[in-house]
């Protein structure tokens, strides 16, 4: 009986090995494996969640060999490769600063194929561990269900921080941090009892402006590094439609103006009065990293929508004195739209003060549907423009946010399908060279195939936000708003 068992064991082992093994019968391919998401040859932070992926050709069995400097792993999986979190974490810790070679061999249609290897450069500088974003269908200017969510980048945990189901289906704009600090952030919650939700030192406040005092609602904004001030644009926004197939929506302002909000004194300070008769469009203001300047986009008025292709925004800078809350009188132009023949928007200063990253397009103020829309950054010391060629793709790349150490940035890209924005992360090394980006990893690598939501305005944060959707529900329904008053010149 014992002998029979031994023979049976050997027989079963042989059958299994014949079915699974591939020694001697492997076709070597020079092509990279059809990995989705594209995680080939990317730089990743050591604290990122497992880069689960799938193979588009759906092989029956996949063998992945991960070879680092100190550690080696052999994993066998289906066409969906999902790493155990503990194994992944220990590999990342061990290979911090090193490069991991990823060798994939897959059984495709009964034949074993060994694909060309690719590499993961494990960067020893951690990325800020939290990411917030708005999930919304790319329904252009309308919404039905909106959530703001916060994702832990070190694992797959995600939670809802605001849900419009609890706030009378009101629209909510994207969530913005100050200094990537979880205790300093805001977002605009529209609706009858809405307002700007300010999270400062972990305390929530609801701010409103007096009706008709401002041009329109506050829209794009940014915190002063002190946290006391915010600089905002107030915009009257209109959507219009392109007729050509590859274009979709054009969003433009018919009016726009800038204001500084003093959160301590509940006051609104406008920009100095214009000396020119025709007020230009001004939008996307941000403070410099040290808080002594305000950068913003400005464009001369054109007839809209007819002359939309002539609507081009330049990058300007004006001094700001936080002690007296006053602006300087001189305006510098860092990027001239008329000279470059391009329009810029979505400004973001790096926390180390070295760069301003922005979105550049052929024209317009909100080119998230323009295919030519790319990211660029200016070196504020040299004025040199970095075109971020390793980062940009053929579809729009917009809505970027820096990590607190200025070594990583996240942005929304439609590169996958041209429709649905997804958060991509890119590393910027000491020389200011940006590396090939990678998409936010998901537990199920097919996640992006089946989602019908876009990730809007992804923003990095050093920690977890001190509020959740229920706090926002309470703020919406039961909290009195503090009214901000406009100061006159």
């Amino acid at each position, binding site marked *: 009986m014992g002998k029979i068992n031994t023979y049976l064991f050997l027989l079963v082992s042989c059958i299994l090995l014949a079915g699974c093994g591939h020694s001697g019968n492997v076709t070597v391919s020079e092509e990279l494996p059809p990995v989705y998401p594209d995680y080939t040859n990317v730089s990743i932070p050591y604290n990122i969640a497992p880069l689960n992926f799938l193979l588009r050709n759906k092989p029956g069995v996949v063998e992945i060999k991960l070879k680092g400097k100190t550690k080696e792993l052999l994993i066998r999986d289906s066409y969906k490769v999902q790493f155990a979190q503990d194994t992944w974490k220990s590999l990342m810790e061990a290979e911090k600063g090193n490069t991991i070679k990823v060798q994939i061999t897959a059984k495709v249609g009964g034949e074993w194929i060994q694909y060309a290897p690719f590499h993961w450069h494990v960067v020893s500088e951690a990325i800020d561990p939290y990411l917030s974003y708005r999930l919304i*269908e*790319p*329904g*252009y200017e*309308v*919404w*039905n*269900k909106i959530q703001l969510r916060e994702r832990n980048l070190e694992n797959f945990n995600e939670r*809802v921080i605001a*849900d419009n*189901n*609890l706030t009378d289906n009101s629209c909510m704009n994207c969530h913005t941090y100050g200094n990537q600090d979880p205790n300093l952030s805001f977002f605009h919650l529209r609706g009858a009892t809405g307002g700007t939700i300010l999270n400062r030192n972990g305390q929530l406040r609801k701010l409103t402006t007096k009706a008709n005092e401002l041009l329109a609602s506050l829209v794009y904004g940014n915190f002063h590094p002190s946290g006391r001030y915010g600089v905002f644009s107030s915009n009257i926004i209109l*959507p*219009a*439609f*392109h*007729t*050509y*197939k*590859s*274009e*979709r*929506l*054009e969003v433009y302002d018919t009016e726009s103006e800038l204001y500084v909000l003093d959160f301590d004194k509940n006051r609104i300070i406008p920009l100095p009065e214009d000396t020119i008769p025709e007020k230009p469009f001004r939008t996307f203001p941000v403070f410099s990293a040290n808080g002594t300047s305000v950068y913003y986009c400005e464009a001369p008025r054109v007839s809209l*929508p*007819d002359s*939309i292709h002539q609507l081009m925004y330049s990058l300007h800078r004006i001094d700001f004195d936080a002690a007296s809350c006053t602006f300087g009188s001189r305006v510098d132009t860092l990027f001239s739209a008329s000279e470059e023949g391009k329009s810029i928007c979505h400004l973001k200063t790096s926390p180390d003060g070295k760069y301003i990253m922005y979105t550049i397009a052929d024209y317009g103020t909100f080119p998230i549907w323009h295919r030519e829309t790319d990211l660029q950054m200016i070196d504020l010391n040299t004025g040199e423009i970095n075109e971020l060629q390793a980062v940009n793709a053929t579809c729009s790349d917009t809505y970027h946010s820096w990590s607190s150490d200025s070594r990583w940035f996240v942005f929304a890209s439609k590169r*996958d*399908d*041209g*429709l*649905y924005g997804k958060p991509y992360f890119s590393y910027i090394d000491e020389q200011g060279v940006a590396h090939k980006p990678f998409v936010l990893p998901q537990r*199920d690598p*097919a*996640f992006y*195939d*089946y989602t*019908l939501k876009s990730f809007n305005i992804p923003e990095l944060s050093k920690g977890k936000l001190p509020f959740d*959707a*229920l706090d926002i529900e309470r703020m919406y329904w039961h909290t009195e708003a503090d009214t901000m008053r406009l100061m006159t010149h």
Partner: protein
Amino acid sequence: MQTRDEIWTQILVAVIFIIGCFSFFQFLLPYHLFFKEQTQLFLLTTEYFISYFSKPAWLACYMGDFLTQFYYLRGGGAAVLTLVLLIEWWLFMQVLRQFRLKKGIPFLALIPVFIECLLHCELHYSLSVSVAFILVLSTFLLYTRIKHTWGALVFGVISLPLLYIIAGIPFFLFSPLVIIYEISERKIRLFYWLLLILIMVFFPFIMKPLYLLTTKQAYQYPLSSLKINGLNLKREKILALASESYFENWKGVNELIDAEQLPSNAVATYYTNIALSREGKLADKLLDYYQPFSQGLFLQVGPTSNWMDIFFSSDVFFHVGDMNMAQHSAMLGMIFSPHNRSSRMVKRLSEINLVNSDTTATRKYLRLLEATWFHRKWALEHEKMLSGNIEDYPWLQAKRSQIPNRDIIRMSSDYPTILNLLLESNPDNRRALDYLLCFYLLNKDIQSFSQAYDKWCKGKEIHLPKAYSEALLIKLAMTKATQKERKEYGISDEVANAFAEYTATYEGSGGNLEPLRERFGKTYWFYFHFARMKGRSGE
């Protein structure tokens, strides 16, 4: 133990119920069921399954939605509903038996099932609710099998909150059933009943923060509305037109238009107009049907529009070749549909992107369809079109020829701009031409009509449809044109004579519509003089 007669009665009731229920849904409401399937997209993926855990009633909803996908098949909806309601009826019989009822059980058990039958006539009433009732009734029957006193108490207390999690608000039925059962068994346990009632009343409230629901939603999930409208055969006719056009069964659509007394409704007119336009008969038969001004050409989409109008609004843009607006409307249709995802809209989005030669976007939508049971085949066929020879797909070739060849910016309701652009890009786009001219006609904008007609049609040897010749006569009368000018438009003497007769009668009656209705009720002249929008002043 049931007697032979009781068993036969049950069988007889079951057979009558099966025939009646199946016939009711299959012959009275087939399109209502098709439409329910069109407004969901059931994916056979792990992520999709997990997504059900974020709300109560996950098991009922998952099973209900799983079964709803069979509504796609002709007869499938009626068969599935009959089966589910039959199970419910059988379970109700078992429940009534626990209450020691002796007579009339098969008939009494029919009462709640009849009510459910009527509720299934509502578009917002989902099969998940019936599945939820089945789960609750089954749990109750399981409860009655537990003879151990403490075992039953523990089972009752544990299963009640679990029922909310898996079945949602129909869990409210459990506590009364237990109490009635225990009274019938002469087991009086007041504290236990009180505990059950407290769980029943407060558990949804306790769970509402976890599920991110409002209090109202927590106490009605998975019901999305408590509104009951009853059987709506007028809507069924509209859904018939909408579904047959979705199935590309234009012969069927034409039969519906010819055979049915169509309701005076913008959506019914909208699909009638699309069907007429496909055959090049829009301007010939335009006024044979109810026309709510231009709203029967382009459905009005705005903040107060109902979701069904939004859902259908992309079809006309796809029909005339405005792919960008078709895409926008299809996205909106999906966003505002009850499940925020729709197999019909995803198919339309695949087609739009296929026409636009946007391979990556097409694949995005085809992958979604490939993860379904009933749309997978369609997706695989369309996947082939991505890499295939366009000449093998005449519909695709025709659609691509309609695409505008230059870019301008326009507001979403600026239809003349896009229709003119479509014509500039492809002057043979007869659909765009008819929609442009009929848009002006239905808005009584004779001047714009005549300018557009002169620009696109004058001097060309094309058939002059009835509505156009009638409108041109109005324009010619306004400008006091000569006989020669009339001849240049190729207006027949017959129509010109009829116009003279109409004018004489109109003037003779002092502008009264009644003497004109019978003879001229379907002419553009009559529409021009007497059509008023409902609700407008001066109606």
